[in-house]
């Protein structure tokens, strides 16, 4: 039989013993050990003194009624996230219709956009780089009405 004084109890065991969180066999073993081991008994007393000091710490108070402060900030009554299957799958019908319409609308608009841009002549698409700035402002009346026909190459 081994001498119970040979091996000291660990801090882990003493701490759990102090908190009464050890299973019965381990608790009995530690009880027997500290009865005969002054070092472990001292360590256990230190843990107990530390707990007693914690109990002496001042109780801090918020100093006002928090409930009335946050009452106005609560975003409506909390609602359960749990699904209540009163309508079964029929309950999903409005959302399904909405999703289908959205997708169809997206495809239709996308189709019009792509087909529209493909049909435009290259010159039209690049018109923003013309010498006449966007907005159709003329550089001058003369250039509009006198020289423009010549620039087009039309022979009068």
């Amino acid at each position: 039989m081994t001498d119970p004084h040979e091996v000291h109890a660990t801090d882990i065991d003493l701490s759990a013993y102090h908190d009464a969180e050890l299973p019965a066999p381990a608790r009995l073993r530690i009880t027997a050990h500290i009865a005969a081991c002054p070092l472990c008994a001292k360590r256990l007393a230190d843990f107990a003194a530390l707990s007693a000091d914690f109990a002496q710490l001042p109780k801090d108070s918020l100093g006002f009624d928090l409930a009335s402060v946050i009452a106005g900030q609560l975003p409506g009554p909390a609602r359960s996230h749990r699904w209540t299957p009163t309508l079964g799958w029929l309950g999903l019908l409005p959302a399904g219709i909405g999703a289908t319409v959205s997708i169809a609308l997206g495809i239709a608009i996308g189709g019009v956009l792509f087909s529209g841009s493909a049909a435009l002549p290259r010159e039209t698409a690049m018109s923003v780089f013309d010498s006449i700035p966007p907005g159709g402002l003329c550089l001058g009346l003369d250039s509009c009405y006198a020289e423009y026909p010549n620039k087009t190459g039309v022979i009068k």
Partner: protein
Amino acid sequence: MDDKTGIDDADMAQALSARAGDLRAFAGLVRRHQDRMFGFLLRMLGTRDEAMDLTQDSFLKAWKALPDWRPEARFTTWLFQIARNAALDLLRHRQRIEFVSLDADPSHDIVEDYTPSPEKQFSDRQRISLLQRAIDTLPVDQREILLLRELEDMSYAELALILGINEGTVKSRLARARAAALTNFRHYAGESPDD
């Protein structure tokens, strides 16, 4: 019926009502737990203003999350889980969080040399002040477990739930926290480690 059981029963009834949207029931929960939560957050964060803000935020989060609360869990355990997570977020934001390895030497927590005069060592007030200092210099993971155990009287099962660790880790971390707190305390009190 002891006090803890009485509070649990009252919590349960009010939390169920609050979950159904009863604001008055929720106000009752806030009034019952606001000082406890504030005290815990104050010791976790160290500043009164931040602790006040976070107490308020935690209750607002609790209200929003109430539909997810299940009566199988003690209401205070769930509430402190919210407060603890909020505190850790803030500490991470302040970049003051200190992660330590599980087998770190507790003596590394001593951050400065401070020896009070002998006559002050024996006054209760000074002792409490030293304890507060010893707590403040603990790594966050040790500080929170010690506060929840010593001030909130949480069981090992509850600590495991709040901290997201198993009970074996609760046991070892708590023992390490106590050992470190004693080491720090003795250091600040000018005692030798063997006293």
